């Protein structure tokens, strides 16, 4: 029997992997982060003795979103495993299975726990309202199962980057040098991504709700179009409390998500730096590719996106504080401006060529006042680190000012304008793009290796790309 080749070459098959994996990661990361946020929301709701319906509703909403996405994510994962890895990258997948069999086995077990818990919680959310500690406990166990899922898949991903001399011992795989930094980096990143996604959805809902309210006011042509439901309430125009309440709720959810997205992202430069440091110590070629080689400018994009998250977050906080008339809103605006400047500083190319190697090859590795192409702020690393330090401190300041207004009860939900929601929509997109760029950097930094120093992409030829006979001779 002769088998026909599966169409596709190295490039198209690689792109296919990237698309499916990145889609899968976006869903999986959201699931883990959303459960963490649901736990936090539930815990806050329980801590408030008077009861807080908003937190109960938010927790339920997050779980519902998880249910919808869990099925999609699982389908993408199966597609990835069977079609992409099994059919197109069969030889490599078998090799990877042989190396990390027990890790994948443990990974599969965590799915059993996740499936049981997520559907039980979904089906019984309202029934468990009278047993909130039990509901919180179940959410916690669900999150634990999801976290271990990520942990085990991180073992595979990090082992491919830093296989520690190729020792395939189970413990060596788990304790490879980049496993712990990657897992911590992702744990925090999941929360940021879930926060940004929540803010994105809530902003969209707020935007739609306020559009409807404005439509109602259209019957009163003497009034100028209001900028927000809160403004309508002030004018005494809005007689529809349901939409008002809804808009207030979604405004509250939007800022809650944004706070988490910006807040935990403040930790990421630390975590990312230590992750990069481990790569530098243990996989120098990959690190060099990221920082000085072909991916160096892609890494600059990453830093710029990080700055964009802080800038957008601060700008949103500023708009919301201004709408509520909170104290120090001008200071918040000033911080947004400073963050924008720092981001521009980070975004400007460190050299005016595609890579540092190009600069060296052109004998232009000297400051521009000496006729070279290097920027005046020094070498690559201090330059980037300076921008990161400034971003973290300004971002921390911005978040603190905003939280201060919240804690002093100066913020009034529903007053922010519709146009400000664009910032949160942008925040969601930026965080999503950032995850994609990060994935691209990590996966490409070890090229041409699939497992650093051990397996190249070239000796893992696509086995189904050529006709082949199975079953031997028919004689």
């Amino acid at each position, binding site marked *: 029997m002769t088998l026909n080749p599966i169409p596709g070459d190295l490039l198209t098959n690689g792109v296919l992997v990237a698309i499916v994996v990145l889609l899968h990661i976006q869903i999986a990361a959201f699931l883990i982060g959303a459960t963490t946020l649901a736990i936090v929301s539930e815990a806050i709701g329980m801590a408030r003795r008077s009861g807080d319906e908003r937190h109960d509703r938010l927790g339920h909403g997050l779980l519902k979103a998880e249910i919808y996405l869990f099925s999609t994510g699982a389908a993408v994962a199966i597609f990835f495993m069977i079609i992409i890895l099994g059919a197109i990258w069969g030889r490599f997948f078998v090799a990877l299975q042989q190396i990390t069999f027990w890790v994948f086995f443990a990974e599969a077990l965590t799915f059993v726990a996740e499936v049981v818990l997520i559907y039980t919680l979904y089906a019984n959310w309202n029934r468990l309202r009278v047993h909130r500690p039990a509901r919180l406990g179940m959410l916690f166990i669900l999150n634990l199962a999801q976290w271990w899922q990520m942990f085990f898949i991180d073992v595979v991903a990090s082992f491919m980057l830093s296989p520690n001399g190729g020792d395939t011992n189970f413990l060596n795989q788990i304790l490879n040098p980049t496993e712990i930094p990657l897992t911590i980096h992702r744990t925090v990143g999941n929360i940021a991504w879930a926060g940004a996604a929540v803010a994105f959805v809530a902003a969209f809902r707020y935007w739609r709700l306020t559009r409807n309210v404005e439509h109602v006011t259209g019957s009163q042509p003497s009034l100028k179009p209001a900028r927000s439901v809160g403004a309508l309430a002030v004018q005494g125009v809005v007689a529809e409390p349901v939409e008002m309440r809804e808009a207030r709720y979604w405004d509250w959810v939007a800022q809650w998500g944004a706070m988490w997205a910006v807040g935990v992202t403040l930790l990421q430069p630390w975590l990312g730096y230590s992750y990069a440091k481990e790569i530098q110590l243990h996989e120098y070629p990959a690190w060099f590719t990221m920082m000085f080689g072909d991916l160096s400018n892609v890494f600059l994009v990453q830093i710029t996106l990080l700055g964009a998250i802080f800038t957008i977050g601060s700008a949103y906080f500023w708009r919301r504080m201004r709408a509520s008339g909170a104290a120090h809103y001008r200071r918040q605006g000033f911080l947004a401006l400073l963050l924008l400047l720092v981001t521009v500083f980070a975004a400007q190319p460190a050299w005016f060529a595609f890579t540092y190697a190009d600069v060296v090859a052109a004998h232009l590795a000297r400051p521009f006042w000496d006729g070279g192409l290097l920027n005046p702020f020094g070498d690559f690393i201090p330059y980037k680190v300076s921008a990161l330090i400034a971003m973290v401190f300004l971002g*921390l300041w911005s978040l603190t000012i905003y939280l201060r207004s919240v804690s002093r009860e100066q913020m009034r939900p529903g007053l922010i304008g519709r146009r400000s929601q664009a910032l949160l929509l942008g925040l969601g997109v930026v965080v999503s793009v950032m995850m994609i760029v990060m994935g691209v950097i990590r996966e490409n930094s070890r090229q041409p290796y699939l497992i650093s120093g051990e397996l190249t992409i070239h000796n893992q030829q696509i086995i189904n790309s050529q006709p082949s006979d199975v079953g031997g001779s028919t004689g």
Partner: protein
Amino acid sequence: MSRSSSTTRARAAYRWVDERTGLTELVHKGLYEAVPEQGGWAYTLGSATLVLILLQLFTGIFLLLDYVPSVTQAWSSLNYLRTDDPFGAWVRGLHLWGAYTLILVIGLHALRTFLSASYKRPRELNWMSGVILFFLVLGLAATGAMLPWDNAAYWTATVITNILHYVPFIGDGLRQLWRGGTFVGPITLTRTFAIHIWVLPFLLFTFIGGHIYLLRRHGEFGAWVNYDTSTDNPSREVAERIRSAEPPYPTKRIERRYAAPNKTVDFFPNQLFKDTLVSAVLILFIFVMGLAGGAPLDTIANPATLTYVPTPEWFYLPLDQFLVLTPQNPLIAIGVLVIVGGGAAAMFLLPVLDRSPERRPTRRPEILVPAIFVIFAVIFLATLGVNRLYSL
């Protein structure tokens, strides 16, 4: 001589001493002061810190009976304890584990004070003196680690004295002053010994005196939960609380609602029982660890070694890892001075930086959020340090 007459004589002797010293009044004042009722276990960390410092003093005196502060005999005098004097080795173990526990307890004490906002008016100087005490304890730990003159001590001395070099303008001079030359050597050891047993303890006990005086002057603040009101007329409730407050309450120069806790108990026996219990458990732990873990002694210091990998003490691990992560010139000076120095200064000046009357943590995010960030950074750096040094 009958029993009653001997009792009478003892009483007479006590009265004689009491008339001249005011001992009864002093003891009474020390034991019968009011403290907030709620959260008493959290307030035991301060007294536990004092007890541990005293333990360090006594075990340190014992060690002085044997230790010789010279590069030729420091190591061998401690090695003698290890090989020929089990009691001495145990005392050295107590000194080491006492130091470890002390650092942990004083850190928790500072954290408790921070979270409960006890540093606010009029207790600013309590906090500042406490921060100085914290740094003095860290200084004692660092200088103590240099004294055994094994490889670990030698490289600790090299790294720590070298940090001074990053101070602008006078850094080289300071390093040379401590080292007694360009390199770490005999003079470094004698100077470090003098700092460890004279300079820092003198400062430590001076500041302890001031800290305790200020504590008794203003009373224990406790936490915001001690000042919650439960009636419909909070101002009347607060007024009544202030009127019936027992010394040292009501606290002067403070917001009215925080002048007197809603419920208090006497220091003796209520709080003293908790203090004693916690201190006893800690001392028991130290005794056990002193026996089981002892105090390690590396091979004798060898400046020429090329294979020795210096490992900092666990409490300096975050700082050590921070230095590893900080890019070298020119940013290492920023890492050492601006970030670490700035952080230490911010900790010292906390009461000046945070002057809002709010006491609840959720009502003061401007302080709590950066603090959480710093605490996260410290824990994270320590984790990375462990990972780096022990290849986990």
